[in-house]
């Protein structure tokens, strides 16, 4: 029956597991968090992802990868899925899948873009759009593990309405000691925001991040163009390339 859970540890073979949707909540008008119950889930580390497989009645099947949004919590696995117009999998996951429905997923996979709660170095998280999902898993894991590692999150969103986890991040920025959160808006800012909408730049990373001397562990996640630009900024500011971990989702809007 249930093996001892080894977070992020290795099971003998990566297998597709049945995952039952137990609850969902809408993060934005076009993004939904799906909480699955996965029997025998081996546990995972914040930053890891799963592959999701959907199979049609005629046998056609397709797979997509999604980051896990929460730290290890028994058999619960939460994903936040952005609806991609004309997408193949996300419309089904965000609009059709109902509580009690079963899909297949396999994981956890990925050992690179991972934060380990035992690591005490300062952490700089920079997320673009849905790239905030694995970073949120790290923020949640930090609090759950009682870690005192200093965290800063810079979150680039198109508009205030496009922010995931807005209420929770507001609460955590107030209550999770040692967590700072700053925002950049690329299309529309909140009322009274001091700056016009623009892409994340050197000044944002300077102000919202850590000096390179602190040797922070940097995690950058988002659309490929965003990640390339942010990684270039971090290197130009003097961060050690080996301390900058990246995860790219591909072209934005696909």
């Amino acid at each position, binding site marked *: 029956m249930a093996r001892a859970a080894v977070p992020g540890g290795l099971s*003998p*073979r990566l297998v597709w597991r049945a995952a039952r949707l137990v609850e969902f909540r809408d993060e934005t008008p076009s993004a939904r968090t799906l909480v699955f119950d996965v029997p025998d889930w081996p546990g995972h580390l914040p930053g890891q*992802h799963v592959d999701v497989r959907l199979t049609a009645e005629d046998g056609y099947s397709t797979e997509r*990868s999604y980051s896990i949004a929460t730290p290890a919590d028994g058999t619960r696995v939460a994903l936040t899925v952005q609806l991609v117009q004309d997408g193949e999998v996300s419309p089904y996951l965000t609009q059709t899948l109902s509580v009690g429905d079963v899909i297949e997923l396999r994981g956890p*996979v990925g*050992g*690179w873009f991972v934060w380990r709660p035992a690591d005490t170095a300062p952490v700089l998280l920079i997320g673009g759009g849905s790239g905030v999902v694995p970073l949120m898993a790290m923020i949640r894991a930090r609090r759950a593990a009682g870690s005192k590692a200093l965290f800063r999150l810079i979150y680039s969103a198109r508009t205030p309405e496009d922010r995931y986890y807005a209420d929770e991040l507001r609460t955590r920025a107030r209550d999770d000691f040692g967590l700072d959160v700053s925002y950049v808006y690329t299309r529309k800012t909140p009322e009274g925001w001091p700056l016009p909408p623009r892409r994340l730049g050197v000044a944002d990373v300077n102000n919202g991040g850590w000096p390179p001397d602190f040797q922070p562990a940097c995690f950058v996640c988002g659309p490929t163009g965003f990640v*390339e630009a942010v990684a270039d900024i971090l290197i130009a500011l003097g961060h050690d390339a080996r301390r900058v971990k990246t*995860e790219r989702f591909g072209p934005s809007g696909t």
Partner: protein
Amino acid sequence: MELFSDDFTDGNALAGPLREIFAVDMTTATGRCAGCGDEGPVAGMKVYAHAPGLVARCPSCQQVLMRLVRGPSSAWLDLRGTMSLRIPMPAE
């Protein structure tokens, strides 16, 4: 010859497909490019996934490092562009 800059993802996307084959996570492995000699993590490779298989390229020189094709009953892994892979092993 001008290249578009963002029509790829990265080696993190290889985690599942490679973990299906190997007993350990391969995205933390360090690969050396047979073309330019650059070293880096598999997770940092440029990956073209909108293709008949997964194609991983060197972020420095574009050389094809890895091709992975998954058929119904076989997987093919072509590594001729990779000179070597250093694979972290879990402690016993």
